[in-house]
């Protein structure tokens, strides 16, 4: 090998190392639907950066993790829509420029300024939504019964239902069944919700997480999942089309997730670009159909990119009706949250 080749190789190597060191990395704390290559790769290629994603479970856990972190550790956060205020109050989120977000194209109910904005400053933007409602096996139960919440958990279906293991949507459903709006839930209305939960609990064979609930439905262990929805049943419906979901006459609970830039980010511009990519029609379509779970995109312009099959699984054409009939997750303050959780744990352990 000539000296010149060595020098050339060395130079190339140094250039490569330098490039690697200079390549920007974006660190995102996300839900599992943000980890698909199909979603992340296009952004990485366009900006020549690497996106590191880390999944988490539970807002409390994420906030604790962020509070324990050093500046620059995290750039982007995906968080439950009703919990944005908790992150803002802890000073974790940076303001977002309203004029650069396509909220005009969003489903109007999903912009949720009251959740994403504080004192006129926007801190997060909604990216995806769906429903916590009733999933069921249409061959084993009477679909007409599923339209009435109190029939669902009546003794008629005792031991044939499973309850989704998250207290907020399930208590929201209990409130809706009793005619209490989820936004109006207070300490007093827990007296109304308590007996409904007890009734639900006594009819239920189990209180289950995502996979346990899916297993129970697919193996015939139970025929109904209270708190389920498209995100639970879609993966099963391909092989067992009798597993489906509905929104009862009284309505159901709507979940949303938001995305924002962290105040401690050392590359806020790149982080903002990522947020903008996620809420763009292309990003939205990819997010809606992620491998982890499907859900409606917040930006209705994604409808031009999704194909007809995808839209029919998402029940795109029913959204106007669904949005009108569903209510947002209960969003309790810290004290009420404690009371709700205590009631839930108390009912569960009975």
């Amino acid at each position, binding site marked *: 090998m000539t000296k010149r080749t060595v020098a050339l190789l060395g130079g190339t190597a140094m250039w490569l190392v330098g490039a690697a060191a200079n390549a920007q990395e974006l660190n995102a704390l996300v839900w599992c639907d943000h980890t698909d290559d199909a979603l992340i790769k296009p952004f990485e290629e366009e900006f020549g950066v690497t996106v590191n994603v880390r999944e988490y479970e539970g807002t409390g856990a994420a906030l604790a993790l962020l509070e324990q972190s050093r500046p620059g550790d995290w750039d982007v956060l995906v968080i439950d829509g009703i919990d944005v205020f908790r992150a803002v109050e802890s000073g974790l989120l940076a303001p977002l420029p309203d004029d650069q977000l396509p909220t005009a194209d969003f489903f109007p109910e999903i912009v949720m300024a009251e959740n994403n904005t504080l004192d006129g400053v926007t801190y997060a933007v909604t990216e995806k939504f769906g429903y916590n409602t009733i999933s069921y096996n249409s061959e084993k139960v009477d679909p007409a019964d599923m339209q009435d919440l109190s029939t669902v958990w009546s003794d008629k279906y005792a031991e044939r239902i499973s309850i989704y293991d998250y207290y907020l949507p399930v208590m929201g459903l209990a409130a809706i069944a009793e005619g209490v709006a989820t936004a109006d839930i207070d300490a007093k209305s827990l007296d109304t919700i308590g007996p409904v939960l007890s009734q639900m609990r006594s009819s239920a064979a189990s209180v289950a997480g995502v996979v346990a609930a899916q*297993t129970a439905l697919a193996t015939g262990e139970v025929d109904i999942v209270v708190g389920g929805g498209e995100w639970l049943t879609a993966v099963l419906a391909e092989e067992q089309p009798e597993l489906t979901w509905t929104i009862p006459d009284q309505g159901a609970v709507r979940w949303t997730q938001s995305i924002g830039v962290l105040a401690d980010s050392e590359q806020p511009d790149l982080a903002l670009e990522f947020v903008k990519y996620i809420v763009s029609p292309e990003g939205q379509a990819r997010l809606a159909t992620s491998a982890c779970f499907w859900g409606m995109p917040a930006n209705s312009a994604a409808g031009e990119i999704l194909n007809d099959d995808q839209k029919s699984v998402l029940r795109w054409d029913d959204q106007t009706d669904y949005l009108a009939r569903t209510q947002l997750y209960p969003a309790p303050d810290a004290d009420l949250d404690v009371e709700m959780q205590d009631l839930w744990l108390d009912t569960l352990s009975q």
Partner: protein
Amino acid sequence: MSAGTGTKLGWGFVAPALLWTLAFFIVPFLVMGAMSFATLEGRSLVWGFYLDNYIELATRAYLWRAILVSLEITLTVTVVSVVLAYPLAAIIAFRVPPQWQRLALLLAILPFWTSYVVRSYAWLLVLAREGLINQTLINIGLIAEPITLANTRFATVTGFVHFFVMLLTLTIYANLVQLSPNYRRAATDLGANAFQTFRHVILPLTLPGIATGAFLTFVLCIGDYVTPQVLGGNNELTMPQVIMVQLGRRADFPLASALAIVMMAIVMLAYLASARWLRLDRV
């Protein structure tokens, strides 16, 4: 103790483990202990000496139930696992030809290496209404209708026992093979039958090993979250499940710490109780 081995040398052997434990366990644990006396004001942590968390513990019925449920499950699992694992370890140690023993032992613990979380879900399938057990029982005519096995305490205990039988077989076997065959031979020479040999010779000699394994089972079982969460169907709540709820949504570290300290106190009591009962001064 030979005179030539000095105290200084002894410290040298113990120091690395002690330092590691101090730095990475005691210090964090003290922080955790201090945190159980802290309190949350809104989202921010206030250090101090507040008894709020312990008062809450004392006044919430579900926390007491969780303690009770955890204890019941853990004791059942520990007893059943020891009773099932001991004969298995003994058969491997005394009946299986020596050249096959290690293979038999490894076969007995191999399933450990399928992921624990995935394995719990596999139990859910085995115990399901259309699962292997129900189908077998129906086929041999023992039952006419499938019985509910999944999402019950039975399922939780089964999942745990499966895990701990493997673990205990390993620890008890390690103990059994260290027994000199002379003990057994001597007992037989003295006219003892197999049961007497076991009762008066082998069992007493292996008690320390059993106690180690049983105590380990107790601790791992009482602190585990995944098995009851997956298999129990939340039909009753254990302490770790309650702790996880405090952490996941609320990040109530002070209350979670207080719960953890209560759990640790229970384990300490179990340790003291078993140590005295079995006259153990080691383990």
